[in-house]
């Protein structure tokens, strides 16, 4: 079932929308949740919360790309659950990604105000949009999907060391980009 028809089900308050969403994007949302939570029960729960979040957000939203919309809901829920439920006990893979993300942080005084979300969004998209496709896919896979480096390498036919080098260079460029944009977090 195409995305428009599924969204129409949500708008029609037809519970078949959940089933269809799960059927089409369940695997996708589970992948995102599991990459952050690394726990089957937590992943299932997060995906179920995703359908609830979708049911509650449509209407009024009518997303063009339903899969990404649902995936972002799942991602945010997963990150929130991770931060809440794993404050003491960190998932190693996710912690690893967080450590990498630290490299994005521009050198800034903590006393400065937080960036506006819009400015940050634009800065991120300008940077990612300017990347070569392969570097962009690797960057998004790593820092959006939190995919393991090995998996990224296998899916793209590259070596792990190659992927690491690309990520290292991209992080460095991203930091410089944020500093240049005057983005502080």
């Amino acid at each position, binding site marked *: 079932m195409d995305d428009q028809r599924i969204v129409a089900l949500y708008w029609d308050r037809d519970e078949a929308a959940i089933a269809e969403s799960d059927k089409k994007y369940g*695997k*996708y949302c589970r*992948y995102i949740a599991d990459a952050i939570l690394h726990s089957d029960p937590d992943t299932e729960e997060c995906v179920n919360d995703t359908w609830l979040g979708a049911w509650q957000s449509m209407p009024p939203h009518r*997303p*063009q*790309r339903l*899969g*990404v*919309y649902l*995936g*972002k809901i799942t*991602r*945010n829920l997963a*990150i929130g659950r991770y*931060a809440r439920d794993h404050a003491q006990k960190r998932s190693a893979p996710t912690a690893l*990604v*967080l*450590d990498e*993300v*630290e490299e*994005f*942080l521009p050198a800034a005084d*903590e006393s400065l105000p*937080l960036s506006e*979300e819009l400015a*940050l*969004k634009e800065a*991120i*998209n300008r940077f*990612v*949009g300017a990347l070569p*496709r392969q570097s*962009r*896919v690797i960057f*998004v*896979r790593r*820092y*959006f*999907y939190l*995919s393991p480096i090995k*998996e990224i390498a*296998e*899916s*793209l*036919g590259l070596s792990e060391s190659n992927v690491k080098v690309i990520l290292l260079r991209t992080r460095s460029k991203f930091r410089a980009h944020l500093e240049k944009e005057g983005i502080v*977090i």
Partner: protein
Amino acid sequence: MKDKKDEKKQRLLEAMSLLDDRYVEEADPTRARPKKKLWRRLSILAACLCLIVTSASLWLFLPYNHQPPDVSEYADSEYYPLIQKLNAVTYIRPTYKNNFERYFGRWGYTLYPKDDAYLNFGASSPAGGEPGAALPEGATDGADSLTGSTSEMESQYQETTDNQVEGVIEADLIKRSDRHIYYLRGNTLSVYPIAGAETRALSSLTVSLPDEMRYAYRASEMYLSTDCRTVTVIASYTARAGQTKVALISLDVSDPAAMVQKQTVTLTGSYQSSRLTDGTLLLISGFSVGQNPDFSDESQFLPQIDRGEGAESIPMKDIVSPETLSTTYYTVVSSFDEDTLALSGCTALLSYSNTVYVSHDAVYVTRAAGLRHKEGDLTVSESVTEIARLAYDGDGLRYRGSVTVAGYVKDQYSLDEYEGYLRVVTTTDEQKYRESVSFGYGAAEIWMDGGSGSNASLYVIDLETLTVRTAVEAFAPAGETVQSVRFDGTAAYVCTSIQLSDPVFFFDLSDLDHITVKDTGTIEGFSTSLVNFGDGYLLGIGRGDGWDTVKLEIYEETETGVASVCDETISRSYYSQDYKSYLIDRENRLVGLGVSSYDGSYRSRYLLFFFDGLTLHRMVDCTLRGDISTMRAVYIDGYLYLFSNEDFAVQKLS
């Protein structure tokens, strides 16, 4: 601080959710990308394999070019028919069909196509000695005359060479007048006044060859004109460009003390032989066309003559060639005026060998070839000789046709023209064998069966019709080959041999319809030269009962056969088979030759024998340094004058 940093990291990670949907969708990890990558790799690998296999196949099985190059661009040339023939013969075709056959032939076999005629040439070495050498010790260079006037104004020519045909002079290292002896050491001519024991070299002159000479690889020969005023030297040399050439150099020797070089004519090719008759110098040279010649350069496929005004190619009308070439070797017969070296005629015979016989009015050039035919399951192979006749006179040379006989000739003495007939003695060599192919090591194997045999035959050819008038075939014991021949009017002497024994045959050719033959029976040794020694005696020079034994033997005809009168052997010695190195003095019944003897070390010496009608007596046995093939001797008024490329001596005879 640490919590704030963690919070920031988390906020940034959350901020990644702000990524544009298209970038998120682009990187969807659940899409089936790996298969696409794998197929791509497999496709690339398959394409590479196909390329490798195709390249390998092309390299292995692409056929070699077996066609000669296209020569149609020379269609306007007068030599085009000749170029086409040469192109087909000089093009070296690949041995294999392709690389697979070349490198993996052991796993298969290949039978190469057989031609109906195959090459069977035996090039005899032209006479000659060593390259130019210094004068021997004791010789002087200068006007140190002991006999008064050195001029040849009043001299008379004296023949020193035992010419095959009387009146047809052959070039040699030694010539003389009644006053002087001329000897050629390489390219240096020395003159000796005849003065008995006091003889010393009067003067010498090293002929100057063209500047392009790189080195003279064969010795020279010469003629002395009948007025004793001109010496014509014939020299072979290699030009700097690597091309072999023949030079005719005329020297003014009217004043032997002050010899002067006059003029030079050069021809491309190698010197084979020459004759001088009635003021006409006939030069026989050979010119070989190399592989894959450049037909835009005439010097690569045509003999050329340079008379000092640039090289000129022989015109097409003067080239005689068979329909099918079996070789790319020219035999060039040129005629020059002895005094002026002006060219009066030239004929080039393509595919002819260098065995030449010259009579009073014709030049005969032979070509040996092999023929094969089938007899049941046997293949019969035999040699044949084609003899071409060129008439010469004051108007030049004219090709008169050819005739073919079975077998091959030994040398120029195997032919003789007499009263309208050409007599020829050949060795016939019919072989029968059966061909088979076995895989063995992958190559074709041919094994012989059916036997083979050689023999000797004599043919009499009518020169009017160039057909065989009569023949005596296979007159020798089976397996024998011709070692020497000598014609003398209506008589012919032939020595054949197998290993180290020979019979000598005497033919009476006075009645061609009833040719009779007698022989000596089998005797030890064999003669490589047979010489008419006068008074009915025949002299044989050759080997004795061992390969290192020299034997001289005198024969005479008897009622029932040919008998040996006497012989003389020289053991542990070798002799020269150059007939010009023998002293044959019929008037004084002297025979001399140089030998190389081994007695702990090799020593060259000269031997002179006197035949008193019953026995050969050794008159002289003296050391003479040098190459035995360059040794020459002249007997004058009780003195024997001895020359070699390294030495000179005078022996007084009692």
